[in-house]
């Protein structure tokens, strides 16, 4: 029998708590009741499993135990006797462990929970926090740390969000038909934000894994939504470059300079297979197109072999569905590779992105390639001043010094 220690139970918690919680929220109609019950069930597991071994279906055990605990508590509360009658109708066969009813409807419950957590009536911050807390099984402390927010502030944010769900009666269901596209968008955004929070310097890397897990879950639950698949592919393809993205000192390595042998082939293959599936469906969207761009990069064995015309064509398409200045900037980078830095610079100069450091970094690089090293050097400095992490600042200042060096070298 495998050793059942705290770490093993922690893994079960990460994997199963969202599922149990989602089922219990449907049953009890109350997030707090469900959360308390699931916590209690895991506390019990921590006491029992190390001695008795893990049950054959740990998730089912947790759900059943949590449900029984919650029912016990409700039974004890005299004034809620009336509610109990309704629970009994919803939950026949309480009191027995491992009844078969856990198996079937739970997937839908997690999908309901995602849509409730990411309801547009909640702020984006609240959506992200709730999703991590309720579906990801992160503690309030972990969620707070991930977003560099003090724990009491994060606890307050979660309490407020849950209170709003209850008071405003934000529904616990999967939106249908016409409303689905508008409601799916914030769900995808939340998962993407969670991933990006994990990419940043100080934040918890576990967030990236969590975002991929959520994207995988969503794709499994909504196989007909190409954008969900596109998001999963995009995250896998970005994640495949993790080992080569930073130096041991934490500084960043540009895509062109990364050691491609260290890219994770399994993730690339999975991501590219999803992209091919999306292409066949031919219902492009922002995540699918970004994934496709990432997939083209992943195809090139060396930076020089990158199929830039293909990438440029994809950015053209992306700009049609997402005509934002940031997309225009990336489009200009591709233009720089296909038609040269002068054509790209002309496009970049028209963008209104003064507060966005990649704008200055891109401008700096194009100026450097055009031999306008003084201008390049001040653009690098501007980029460095705006960069959010020390690693990025160092990297940009290094670029600035290189440009300066080139200038004085030519002068000498």
């Amino acid at each position: 029998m495998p050793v059942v220690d705290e770490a093993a139970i922690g893994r079960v918690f990460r994997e199963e708590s969202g599922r149990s919680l989602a089922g219990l929220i449907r049953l009890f109609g109350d997030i707090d009741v469900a959360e308390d019950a699931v916590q209690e069930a895991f506390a019990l597991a921590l006491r029992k499993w190390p001695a008795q071994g893990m049950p054959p279906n740990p998730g089912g055990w947790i759900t059943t135990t949590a449900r029984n605990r919650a029912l016990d508590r409700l039974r004890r509360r005299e004034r809620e006797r009336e509610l109990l009658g309704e629970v009994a109708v919803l939950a026949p066969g309480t009191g027995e462990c491992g009844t078969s009813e856990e198996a079937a409807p739970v997937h839908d419950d997690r999908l309901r929970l995602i849509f409730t957590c990411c309801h547009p009536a909640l702020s984006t911050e609240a959506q992200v926090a709730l999703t991590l807390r309720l579906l990801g099984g992160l503690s309030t402390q972990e969620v707070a740390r991930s977003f560099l927010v003090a724990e009491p502030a994060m606890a307050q944010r979660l309490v407020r969000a849950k209170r709003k769900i209850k008071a405003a009666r934000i529904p616990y269901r999967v939106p249908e038909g016409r409303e689905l596209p508008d409601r799916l968008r914030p769900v995808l955004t939340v998962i993407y934000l969670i991933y990006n929070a994990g990419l940043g310097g100080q934040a918890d890397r576990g967030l990236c894994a969590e975002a991929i897990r959520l994207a995988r879950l969503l794709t499994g639950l909504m196989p007909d939504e190409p954008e969900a698949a596109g998001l999963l592919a995009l995250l896998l393809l970005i994640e495949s470059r993790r080992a080569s993205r930073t130096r041991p000192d934490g500084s960043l390595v540009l895509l062109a300079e990364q050691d491609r042998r260290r890219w994770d082939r399994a993730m690339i293959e999975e991501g590219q297979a999803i992209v091919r599936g999306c292409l066949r469906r031919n219902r492009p969207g922002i995540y699918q197109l970004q994934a496709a761009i990432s997939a083209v990069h992943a195809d090139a064995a060396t930076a020089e072999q990158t199929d830039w015309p293909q990438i440029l064509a994809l950015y053209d398409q992306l700009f049609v569905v997402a005509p934002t200045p940031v997309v225009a900037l990336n489009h200009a980078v591709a233009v720089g590779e296909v038609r040269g830095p002068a054509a790209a610079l002309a496009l970049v100069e028209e963008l209104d992105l003064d507060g966005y450091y990649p704008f200055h970094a891109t401008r700096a690089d194009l100026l450097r390639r055009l031999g306008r090293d003084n201008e390049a050097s001040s653009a690098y400095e501007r980029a460095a001043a705006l960069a959010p992490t020390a690693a990025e600042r160092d990297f940009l200042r290094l670029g600035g010094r290189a440009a300066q060096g080139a200038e004085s070298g030519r002068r000498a």
Partner: protein
Amino acid sequence: MTQYMLSVHSVEGEVRDPMTEEEMRQSHKQLAVLEQQMHSAGAWVFSGRLHEPDTATVVRVSAGEVLTTDGPFAESKEHLGGFYVIQADDLDAALAWASKVTAAIRTPIEVRAFAAFADRPQAFEQFGD
């Protein structure tokens, strides 16, 4: 069922594209149709439009005496201009009505649930499917 207040806030002195007479007529017609829909769907509970805030009077108890003063209570520039009280299954249903109202009158609508209904311990039916 929960009751929701859909409140129409007007901003004093706010420059909006003034509606033409024709647009005004269209807007009134749309509202009439919408209210009819609310009635037949069983959603309508009560609705009303208020006079301008400068017609308001405030009463309050101060040092044991009832004080009556002229003018609106809130100092702010935003005032409640009118409201609907509707009943709906959940927030999504309430938001659907609110979207129709805002489309007709082109003013933002705030949607809030009445506490007496949502906080009654009837939560079990809320999450049923």
